[in-house]
Every structure is written in structure tokens, then in C-alpha cells.
């Protein structure tokens, strides 16, 4: 396809080409040759010849003059030629952590289409054309051999790699993005929304079932928990990810009771009152008043000048995204489970004759805290209560599933992305201005020769 940067010149050339045509139509036709018994007395006149030839009665000369003017206009219009594009290509983002079934899904997604394969974990590798089958075969062998060994992946890395695919698909009109992954929090990062915004179209999400989680030996498979309050869904998910069985119905005591805010239901209060001495009670934010002061691990203070929340440090592991930061300090007799980055306590626990009470100065199910990859670790540590064990990354942290909002953000809206728009800033079209100028010069030479041939008397 030929593009023109300055169409005005092309239009001007076409209009100017009409001038010799109009002159041809308006001018009188030159008289027929006149016979004369002898030409010996007629002086050949170049002026006469030129005057007669200024009437462009010669069709061939007229055509060349018109083409010359059009070619000059075309040369100044900065034309460029872009090879024709065909069809929609597939850009496959393949999570290196997927099991073999995911790789098979990826192969099916690429089958029969022109495409690019981007394999990512914490970095991205791109494969095109004939290299794709070999890459998929290698990944499948690796996945089969290592089973479901957890690997960390980064959606942000994968989405950032989409920005450069237009250069890899010169023959395609558009491209669709397909993400094959186990949608889990482990691959989510704070840079995902920004990276997602660089791809204007939609992303097809092929969700691969997560492999079964490994459970920590120190986490009893039978520990139970009940959660009340705002953000309970996130806490429940995190507890299940680390091996707890979360129960919702009132019943026998659970091992851990979460009351996340003061506006809890009567069931929450009932649970709190009924909690036995072996129940670890976790309260957060505004739920602190539920705890008698002699059992509370926290001494609240007036929030005259609230400090901004920072990432929470739980034994060297940072968890970011806290929505708020409660004022106060750990009470006497309490020990700090987690700190803010400035060293102030964020979560404190206190043992009493009743049980273990844990207080979090930040809401545990609000803000972007649940989106942090280490969130389950935080919940697990909080649920561990007054145990002074070291924090360790629980197995299956990466397997925490993404919620609907995160999935919707990944999918986005729209369909395939037109690659022509993507290349608008840097056109790959070949400039034709010089070629047009050469054509114009050639036409000028032929026109001059034609005109000269007719003026020189034989």
C-alpha cells in the first residue's frame, strides 16, 4: 500500500496535468501540411516550428507532459510504500510455571496462526516462526520432568513484552494477545496495571488449573478458622492457601477467629465471647474495643496526626498495600509480630490466661494488602498468634488465586490490536520520493526528445 505524507502536492500535480490537456482541447489544430512545387525557397524556421508545436496536438507528447507534471507532484508528496499486511497474528504469553496441560493449551492457541510466543517468569523470552514448536517442546519436557515445582512469574514482565511485538509481525494487520497461566497472586505485582495499559486491546485468558499445593509440615491440616468482617473473603482465601480450613457456620471452637472490624455481626460477637482458651483471636482496626483492656495487646492512641502506612515487615518479608495505619503502640506484655518500615509495631500479640489475642493496626482485608504476593504469609503469621516461630514463605504462596477484579483487569476489553496504529509513530514504509523524482526526470527527457524531434526540420 502506498501512503502519501503530503497529499496536497499530489493533488496539485494532478491539477497542473490538466493544463496541457485543456490547451490541447482549446488550441486550434495545426493546419494540414501544404504541398509546394519546390521547397528550395522556403527557409526552415525554428520559431515557426516551435510556434506550431506549442499547440500540443501530438497525443503522445501530451500524455508525457501530463505524466511529467503528475510525477513531479508525486515526488514532492513524499510517498512511501508499505508491504501489504494480512490477517491477525497471535501473541501468546505463556507462563513458564504452567504444567504440561498449559503448554498443550498454548500449542492449540497458536495452531494455524502466524504468531509470536513470549515465555515469561520473572523475565521474558520471545520466539517467532519456526522457533516456536521447539520452544514449546522444550517447555513441555521441562514441565513434565519437574512436575509442579513452583516458580515465580510476573504478569508485569509478560505484559511489558507486548509493547515490542509489532516489529516482529510486519506482515500482520492486527494481533490478539493470549495469556496462558495459572492466575495466582504470585504472578501479580504492583506494576501489572501500568504494564496492562500499554496493550490497548483485550487479552484472552486461558486459565490453567493450579497444581495441588504442598502443605507445610508445621501447619496442621485440621486447623480451622472463622473470619468475620470487611475483607473476610481475602483473609479466608489466604488461610485456605496456607492450609487452614475455613468454616463459616457457627459451631465448635475454631483454632483461629478473625474479627476484622467493629461493625461485625452478632455471630461475630458471639464467637468472640464464646472463644475458648485455645482459640487465637485476631482483631484488626476498629475491632480492638472488643478486647478487654487487660487482654489487649495494643494501646490505642488518638490519631491526631496519623502516619502514612508503609510496607509491613514480618521477619524480613515485606507486605505492601496497607490501607490505613492505626495510631498506638504495643501494650505492655505484648510482643510485636510485624513492624512498619519505620520500626513502629504494626501487629502485636499478647498471651493471657484466656487465650492469645493478636491485634493488627491495619485492616487485614482492605486496600491492596490482599494483592501482595506475601499476603498469605502475613495472614499465616497473624493466625499463628502468640507462637514466636520465624516467618517463612509458605508453600503455595504463588497459587493464591486472583480475584475477579484482577482477572478483569488482565482481560481488559476490546479485541485484536491493529498493528498499523502501533506503527504510526515509526513507519516501516519505504520512501518512494526518489523513485518518483527519477521517473519525473525520465519523463522530462522523453518529452524533450519528442518535442525536439518534431521541431528539427528534416
Amino acid at each position: 500500500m502506498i501512503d502519501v505524507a503530503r497529499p496536497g502536492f499530489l493533488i496539485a500535480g494532478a491539477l497542473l496535468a490538466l493544463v496541457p490537456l485543456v490547451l490541447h482541447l482549446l488550441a486550434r489544430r495545426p493546419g494540414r501540411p501544404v504541398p509546394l512545387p519546390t521547397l528550395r525557397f522556403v527557409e526552415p524556421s525554428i520559431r515557426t516550428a516551435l510556434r506550431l508545436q506549442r499547440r500540443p496536438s501530438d497525443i503522445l507528447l501530451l500524455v508525457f507532459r501530463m505524466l511529467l507534471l503528475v510525477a513531479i507532484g508525486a515526488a514532492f508528496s513524499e510517498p512511501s510504500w508499505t508491504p501489504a499486511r494480512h490477517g491477525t497474528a497471535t501473541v501468546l504469553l505463556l507462563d513458564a510455571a504452567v504444567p504440561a496441560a498449559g503448554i498443550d493449551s498454548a500449542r492449540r492457541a497458536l495452531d494455524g496462526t502466524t504468531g509470536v510466543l513470549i515465555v515469561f517468569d520473572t523475565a521474558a523470552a520471545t520466539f517467532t516462526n519456526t522457533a516456536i514448536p521447539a520452544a514449546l517442546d522444550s517447555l513441555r519436557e521441562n514441565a513434565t520432568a519437574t512436575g509442579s515445582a513452583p516458580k515465580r512469574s510476573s504478569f508485569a514482565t509478560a505484559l511489558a513484552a507486548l509493547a515490542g511485538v509489532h516489529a516482529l509481525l510486519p506482515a500482520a494487520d492486527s494481533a490478539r494477545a493470549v495469556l496462558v497461566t495459572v492466575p495466582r497472586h504470585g504472578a501479580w505485582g504492583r506494576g501489572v496495571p501500568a504494564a496492562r495499559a500499554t496493550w490497548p486491546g483485550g487479552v484472552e485468558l486461558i486459565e490453567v488449573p493450579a497444581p495441588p499445593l504442598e502443605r507445610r509440615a508445621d501447619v496442621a491440616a485440621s486447623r480451622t478458622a472463622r473470619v468475620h468482617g470487611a475483607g473476610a473473603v481475602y483473609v479466608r482465601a489466604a488461610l485456605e492457601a496456607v492450609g487452614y480450613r475455613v468454616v463459616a457456620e457457627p459451631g465448635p471452637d475454631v483454632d483461629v477467629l478473625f474479627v476484622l472490624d467493629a461493625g461485625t455481626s452478632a455471630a461475630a460477637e458471639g464467637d468472640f465471647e464464646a472463644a475458648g482458651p485455645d482459640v487465637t483471636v485476631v482483631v484488626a482496626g476498629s475491632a480492638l474495643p472488643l478486647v478487654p483492656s487487660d487482654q489487649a495487646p495494643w494501646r490505642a492512641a488518638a490519631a491526631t496526626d496519623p502516619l502514612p502506612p508503609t510496607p509491613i515487615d514480618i521477619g524480613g518479608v515485606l507486605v505492601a498495600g496497607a490501607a490505613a495505619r492505626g495510631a498506638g503502640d504495643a501494650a505492655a506484655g505484648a510482643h510485636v509480630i510485624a513492624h512498619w518500615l519505620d520500626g513502629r509495631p504494626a501487629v502485636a500479640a499478647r498471651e493471657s490466661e484466656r487465650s492469645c489475642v493478636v491485634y493488627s493496626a491495619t485492616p487485614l482485608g482492605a486496600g491492596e494488602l490482599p494483592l501482595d504476593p506475601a499476603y498469605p504469609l502475613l495472614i499465616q503469621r497473624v493466625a499463628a498468634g502468640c507462637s514466636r516461630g520465624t516467618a517463612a514463605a509458605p508453600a503455595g504462596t504463588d497459587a493464591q488465586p486472583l480475584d475477579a477484579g484482577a482477572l478483569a483487569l488482565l482481560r481488559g476489553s476490546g479485541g485484536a490490536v491493529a498493528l498499523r496504529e502501533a506503527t504510526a509513530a515509526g513507519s516501516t514504509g519505504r520512501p518512494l520520493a526518489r523513485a518518483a523524482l527519477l521517473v519525473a526526470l525520465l519523463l522530462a527527457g522523453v518529452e524533450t526528445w519528442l518535442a525536439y524531434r518534431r521541431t528539427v526540420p528534416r
Partner: protein
Amino acid sequence: MSTWSLLERLGGLELLARTAVQGFLTGLHRAPYRGAGQDFFGHRAYQQGDEPRHIDWRLFGRSDRLFVREYREDANLQAYLIVDTSLSMDFADPDGPTKLRYAQVMAGALAHIMLAAGDAVGLASFGAGARVHVPARSRRGHLHDLLLELERLRAEGGGGAAGTLELVGGVLRRRGRVVVLTDMLEENAAGETVDALGRMRARGDEVIVLRPLTRTEEGTVQRRAAVFYDPEARAGAVHGSVSDPGYRARVQAYYDDIGRRLRERDVEYVPLSTADPVEHALRAWLSTRLV
């Protein structure tokens, strides 16, 4: 419709020639026509068709028989009309006669006059080749033969007059008169023809060249610059003009030079224009013959 074309339609060459002669004779001031024999030769019996003015009435009164006078020159002067029938003669001004047609009428008129004066007149031509169409005769009805042959002349070829002049010179038994009607547009400025004419004059024959030319060729008519071509030659066309002074000067110089060379050889040269009536041309020719 011009008078010329009207006469053509009505009577052809014969009418044209007779009209020219009548016009010529009307303007004639009864000047003696040199060349018609006036020496009394003798009497012969009257034959039907003889002109009454030649009847010797004195002898009739004495003999009661009709006799006509015969003059010496009547039977002795031979004249040949040589017409140029080359392709260059087939050119005309708009609404005018071709030079060949003009020459045909001129020759017809001259034949009329000379036969009336008692000359024997023949007809020859050159162009496609040297040819004597009609030998010189003076008998009754010869004019009709001459006009018939004149009418049959067609423009073709591009040969010069030298061959025909030699041919005519060979058939002229005694001092004769040769009238050549030609545009003198030959190669080498008609050098061969001029030389042949000079040789004929040197023999003692009376030689006259009547040169018809169109106004276009003379350059006296305004015409737009155009592409001109020579139908006879194979050369290409020329962009130019026949109306500029340079063209007229070149034409004039060419014919002045020919006239000079002819006069040097004592050959009469009469330039004519096809735009002028034939009777005017006859008068112009006659003016050279007044005693």
C-alpha cells in the same frame, strides 16, 4: 465561380483559348504581327473554307474564277509549342488554375493566333519524357488536333526540357519558332534547359520562354506559416512561411538569374502569373514582338 472555371465548364480548353484570343485581338491595335509571312508567293484555286480576304478579286474579275493569294511565310514558318508537364506544374492558387492548365490555355491561344497567321504549329511536351505530340501543320482543322492533344496533357514526372528541345530541333526543317511554357523549376537552376534553349537560338530559331507562376509561389499572397512539403520529392516537410520578404526575394533572385542567362543567349523570357488573365499574358508576349 470564377470566369476561368465557368469557361472550363462551358467549353473547356477550346472556349478558353478562343476567349483569350478574342480578348487579345480586341485590345490589339492592329499592329503588324511580326512573323506572319507577307511576301506574295502565288495564287491557287479557291477551296471551301479559305478566308474571303485572301481571294484575289481582281483576278476573279478577269477570269470569272476564284483564286486566293498565297504568301511565302505562310507555308514556311514552323512553330512548336512545348509545354512543361512535370509535376511542379500541377500547382494552383486557391480558386485558380494550375500552372499546367494556364499553359494549356496559353498554348491553345497561341496556336489559334499563329495558325490564323499562317504558321505551321506543332505541340511537344516534357516532364515524364520528351515527346512530340503533334507535328507542325497549318492545314485546316489542325487547331482542333492541337487543342485535343493539349487537353490530354497530364502532369507527371520531373524531367527537364533539354531532351524535348533537341527532339524539336531535329524536326524543325528550317528556321522556326519555339515557344516553351514552363515554370523553370528544375535541378541546377534549369541550367541544362537554359543551355539547350541557347543552342536552339544559336541555330537561328526564334525561342521564347513563357514562365507561369502562381501567386503563392511568387510569395505575393499572405499565407500563415505552415508545414510545407514537396509532393514530387521524397524530402521531408519544412516549417516555414511563403509570405515573408525573404521568401519573395529568394524567388525573385532565382528567376532574375534565369532571365539574365536567357537574355544572354538571346532567348526571350516572359514571366507570367496565373492570377493574370491569359489575354494579358498574350499582350505581354506580343509587346516583345512589335516591330
